């Protein structure tokens, strides 16, 4: 019996994120351009250690108030963001923009319930239908970090346009491919591009709602912009467009490889451990995201190589 109790104690104390004391993301705003800050996330998948902190949300301080871009994976994250913003400026929050429906972009919305939260129509639709399920799954993946988090659907619809806050002209660029609706925001005043979900940097792209063809077209559209600082929503922030090239390289390789293997008769299960070229080795969560992508993309690709036989 004593051995049993000891075993149970061991099991309980070994569970990550339980006995670690109060959870905190310890968010530190990093200045990347005039009036512009980013909270840099890890280049990992959601875990009980990182609490879902894998995104690069940011904010722009304007004379008309603070513009927040993404609210993070949990209510706690949103609250910590708001507290950290208050250490930089005493201006009120004016508006929040959400770039797509994935849970790490908007589950912090509850902390910004008193201000307009804006997103593309497709993003709002997606959050309405898939939000509750995604929220539940986040509780499963990161656990107690999610306490008190409930979906809050964005309250304002935006379209492609240019909006002005104080001295900052923000170009809202509607794209698609990573999801059915991806919002990129170019601050024309500083040249900072908040690329949204379509650009990843040293972090393997995620494809649960992807259309690769449209995604590649979206990358071309961003490549044509004048940019001084590129903020990918996951991964390293850079002063060049290397992240766009890397994302394009990965998506092209992935799509081509799956098609070639399907044509050669491979089964989906055989793709799980297929070799990945060395040049992608530096990207975070490589094998795991690759396997997820096989799950997302293979069924469609497979259908295209199997002819009707009755």
């Amino acid at each position, binding site marked *: 019996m004593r051995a*049993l109790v000891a*075993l149970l104690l061991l*099991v*309980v104390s*070994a*569970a990550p994120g339980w006995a670690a004391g109060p959870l905190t993301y310890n968010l530190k705003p990093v200045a990347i351009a005039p009036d512009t800050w980013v909270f840099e996330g890890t280049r990992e998948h959601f875990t009980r250690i990182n609490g879902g902190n894998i995104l690069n949300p940011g904010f722009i301080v304007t004379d008309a108030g603070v513009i927040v871009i993404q609210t993070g994976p949990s209510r706690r994250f949103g609250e910590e963001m708001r507290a950290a913003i208050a250490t930089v400026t005493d201006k009120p929050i004016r508006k929040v923009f959400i770039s797509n429906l994935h849970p790490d972009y908007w589950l912090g919305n509850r902390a910004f319930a008193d201000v307009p939260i804006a997103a593309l129509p497709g993003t709002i639709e997606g959050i309405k239908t898939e939000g509750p399920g995604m929220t*539940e*799954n986040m509780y*499963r993946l990161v656990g107690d970090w999610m306490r008190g988090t409930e979906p809050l659907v964005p309250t304002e619809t935006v379209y492609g346009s240019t909006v002005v806050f104080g001295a900052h002209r923000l170009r809202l660029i509607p794209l698609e491919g990573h999801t059915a609706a991806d919002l990129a925001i170019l601050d024309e005043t500083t040249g900072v591009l908040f690329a949204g979900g379509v650009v990843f940097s040293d972090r393997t792209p995620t494809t*649960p709602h992807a259309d690769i063809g449209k995604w590649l077209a979206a990358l071309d559209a961003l490549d044509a912009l004048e940019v001084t600082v590129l903020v990918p929503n996951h991964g390293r922030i850079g002063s060049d467009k290397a992240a766009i090239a890397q994302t394009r390289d990965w998506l092209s390789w992935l799509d081509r490889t799956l098609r070639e293997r399907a044509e*050669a*008769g491979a*089964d*989906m*299960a*055989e793709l*799980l*451990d297929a070799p990945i070229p060395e040049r992608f080795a530096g990207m975070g969560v490589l094998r*795991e995201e690759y*396997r*997820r992508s*096989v*799950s*997302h993309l*293979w*069924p469609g690709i*497979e*259908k295209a*190589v*199997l*002819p*009707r*036989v*009755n």
Partner: protein
Amino acid sequence: MNRHLAAAALLAALSSPVYAGPPDPADPLASVMWDVLRPELFGTAPVQFDDRVTVTAPDNAENAAAVPVMADATALGAVEEMVLFADLNPFPVILRFQPLAAKPVIATRFKVQQATPLRAAARTPDGVWHIGGKLLDAAGGGCTAPPATYAAADWADHVGEVQGRAWAPTGEDKATRVRFLVRHPMDTGLVAGIPAYFIEALTLRDADGRALARLQTAEPLSENPGFTLEVQPAAGARSLTLDGRDNQGGEVKAAIPLPWVQGALP
């Protein structure tokens, strides 16, 4: 995961085994269902846990409605029957497979209801079941979610449609790889208001009607299920036939060409 495993191990250790034959080796996956499934699936036949039976599947089910899995028992030599099962699914058995003139290897996709051990058992001619497997983590719900099929108004017109293809033999065993998809909702009967409706049997035959591979398929197979097999048709066969039926009497019939065969024997 660690906690679940430990809890399962504790439960397994505290409960008395149902199976009354000679003592079995300990279940390496420490499944709480093993003592129930063991007599149900294998009766009193001897079992052994055997790394020569490999199960390839992701560690985590990205889509609980279609988890890819490949079971391979070729390292055992001759195999008479294989069973693919997920211990904690509401219907544990995914399929049974007789590789009559086929390699003991099969791949498909299935629905998963919760994190579970996933296993393949292969019976050798001496009557011993060799069992391999792995743990599969999952958010779950795959068996109780309605299929996407019914979103299309004309779904019934397409049930039983087959897409398939065979690839020229490679390697010493001269096995022909065959892949096919069958349009079918594969309802488990666990979704309120949707009765069980699934393919029960599929047989892949040589040109002369001889069965090469027989499948007994079950509820957990994914909607519009897909299969990969490696069969050994007679030399000169120009096509294979696939036939089968679902539990409501619907038939599946298709012919899969072997386009590299010229038809004339050397």
